[in-house]
């Protein structure tokens, strides 16, 4: 079925098609539409999931993880502050090896408070053990949820997944989405048996020795590495079953490109437009967009970057005191690689600040520039940005307390 739906609705459709048994919920902008949609479907008998209204994200993730261990296919969703409120439990549920799917609708973190997206929320959870998907389009949002269930529930993985979409830019944007009628064999039955009189496991117990702790922590890493193979199988089956092609690393005009922009998520759509524009000026530019950051697809990334002269990494996040988190990961992957491209780091799109074509062009010119020696990141900041700041301040000064 082809439909015009928002990113949030596409995510909800993912949960619906996966026939989830349980959805603990808690509202937060811009995620709320997802749980509203699921509640509406449940109220009308379109899904059989049990929906429980929790009192916080911390409890919501606890309930989700517990239910997943108790035998229920589970879905839940949050954003930003909510993800951080649940932070303690993210590490717990992945340590429990609870294979459920959490949608995170990205939104910049307070303070200052904002509603618009960047990726500091999801990237903060980078080391939690969750698999991490970063969708660019509404179609990819739906595909991510379905593939996430398949891979999370694989016996070789057994870890939760986080499917990330950008708040507002994707969550509330309608796009054409192909919604499969049913999943068929793509998603096997849920692998964990229900708790019963004959099945009373002990889960998440403490360990009393650092060796035991290290063993289990490293198991999670090995499971993530196994997930790379499982992802590739799932991608291949997904294309076979539904005719939709996904890739760990999405490439756009990258084949013959000398220089590439590396970035994730919905703002990559803006880069595509900029790439066409920059190419008209005679510079061969392309886009390399990792769709999955955990497990980190190092080999795929290296082969995508092979032969490129330079890579401009656009980070929609900032690690104060260092720079861009994505840049750090790309740079460390390239270290020691033969003929590694030069790499430049840019911070943009914070709190949803839309990058312009000129900003992308600036990135490429910086990258090409022979005196690219800057070690730290370059903040993308235009005259327009400065004017907006100055204008707001001047209005406040004119009419506000200072004026009296």
């Amino acid at each position, binding site marked *: 079925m082809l439909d015009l739906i928002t990113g949030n609705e596409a995510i909800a459709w993912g949960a619906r098609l996966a026939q989830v048994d349980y959805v603990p919920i808690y509202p937060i902008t811009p995620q709320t539409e997802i749980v509203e949609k699921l509640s509406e479907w449940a109220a009308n008998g379109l899904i059989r999931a049990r929906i429980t209204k929790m009192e916080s994200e911390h409890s919501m993730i606890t309930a989700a993880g517990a239910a997943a261990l108790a035998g229920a296919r589970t879905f839940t969703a949050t954003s930003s502050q909510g993800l951080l409120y649940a932070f303690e439990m993210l590490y717990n549920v992945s340590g429990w090896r609870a294979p459920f799917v959490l949608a995170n609708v990205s939104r910049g973190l307070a303070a200052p408070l904002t509603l618009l997206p960047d990726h500091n929320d999801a990237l903060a959870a980078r080391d939690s053990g969750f698999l991490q998907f970063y969708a660019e389009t509404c179609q990819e949002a739906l595909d991510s949820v379905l593939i996430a269930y398949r891979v999370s529930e694989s016996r070789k993985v057994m870890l939760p997944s986080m499917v990330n979409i950008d708040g507002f830019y994707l969550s509330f944007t309608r796009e054409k989405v192909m919604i499969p009628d049913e999943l068929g064999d793509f998603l096997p039955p849920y692998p964990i048996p229900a708790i019963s009189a004959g099945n009373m496991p*002990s889960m998440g117990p403490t360990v*009393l020795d650092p060796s035991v702790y290290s063993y289990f922590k490293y198991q999670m890493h090995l499971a993530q590495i196994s997930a790379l193979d499982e992802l590739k199988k799932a991608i291949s089956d997904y294309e076979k079953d539904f005719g939709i092609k996904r890739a760990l690393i999405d490439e756009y005009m990258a084949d013959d490109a000398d220089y590439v922009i590396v970035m994730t998520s919905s703002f990559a759509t803006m880069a595509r437009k900029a790439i066409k524009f920059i190419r008209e000026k005679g510079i061969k530019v392309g886009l390399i967009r990792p769709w999955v950051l955990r497990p980190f697809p190092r080999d795929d990334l290296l082969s995508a970057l092979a032969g490129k002269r330079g890579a401009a990494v656009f980070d929609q996040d900032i690690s104060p005191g260092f720079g861009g988190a994505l840049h750090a990961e790309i740079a460390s992957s390239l270290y020691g690689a033969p003929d590694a491209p030069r790499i430049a780091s840019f911070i943009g799109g914070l709190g949803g600040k839309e990058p312009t074509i000129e900003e992308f062009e600036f990135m490429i010119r910086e990258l090409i520039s022979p005196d690219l020696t800057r070690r730290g990141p370059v903040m993308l900041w235009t005259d327009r940005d400065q004017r907006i700041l100055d204008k707001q301040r001047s209005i406040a000064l004119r009419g506000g307390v200072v004026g009296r």
Partner: protein
Amino acid sequence: MAGDLSIKTIRETPLEEYLHPGSSMCPGCGAQVMIRLMLKVLGPKTFIVNAAGCMTLLQTYPYSNLKSGWLYTAFASAPAGAQGIRDALDSLISQGKARDEGIKILVLTGDGGAYDIGLQATSAAMDRDLDFYYLCYDNEAYGNTGFQQSGASPYGSSTTTSPIGRLNPVGTEKRKKNLFEIWKAHNPAYLATISPSHPLDLMQKVEEAARRKGPKMFIGYASCPTGMGFDPSLSIKVAQLAVDTGVWPLKKYVDGKVIHTMIPKFVPVEEYLRLQARFRHLFDENNPAAKEAIAKIKDEIRSYWKAQGIEAKARHHMVIADGSCCGSCFSSSFLWFSWGIPSGKGKPSSLHTNMEVAML
């Protein structure tokens, strides 16, 4: 209460054991006595959801001394873990994917988890009318981290974060938070206080609760040799005195009414306080605030019982509301398992198999 219950006297205590020796817990732990008794009544199909606290050490990989299922959650969210498990089972049962086997879910938290950090999650679980059991084992401080002041710490007790010093001769300066009333305001299906010194009262309350659907809430006096400071052999005696002095009222809240299941003898409170290192400063002749502090503690006991229409005056004979024996004479035998049994020898648990599947 005893009328239609199967446990009418201490002789009817179920013989089955679900909590076994072998944990690395402190000897003389009152909380374990209560858990052992509760599990005897709840039976084999009990799934425990645990919060961070002393009882976390009941399960240390790869050993288990419990027959029950177990999930360790986190400090604040054990009731949410219980919610997830209940919801999962209910969803699977309603879809015909699982059979209803009457699995009971028991949340374990200490007083830090119940009075403080987990109050919100507990409130919400009651608000959602979750069908579960909840035991707060209350040793009146953060026991597992070395006995720091919590919302449950009573006035005049010293803890490691309310220590006695030149400027603070009293210790904990606030009163104990009234968790019973906070929980009562949620109108749960069942609510009671219990003590390891009163096993019959405890088991009868659990049995009575088991007949109700919804939140079944228990606040248990967890006599704590390690934190409160007394010899492990005195654990039941201290718990008994907590009840007998009127410090720890044994009561239940059912169908909109609070019923005291034990009217204390009103033994002078000094007998209770004197046994515990955390109150030692109240008997120090050089402590200028000691007398006033004890008077204040007595006042609090008096005014509590006065509000119940009972004058706190020493009695010779114990009066029991339902006329049955309190069973405390039996209670010393309930301590056998927690005394210094070497750890690590328990039954291996059926640990969640997912823990190991990623082996390459």
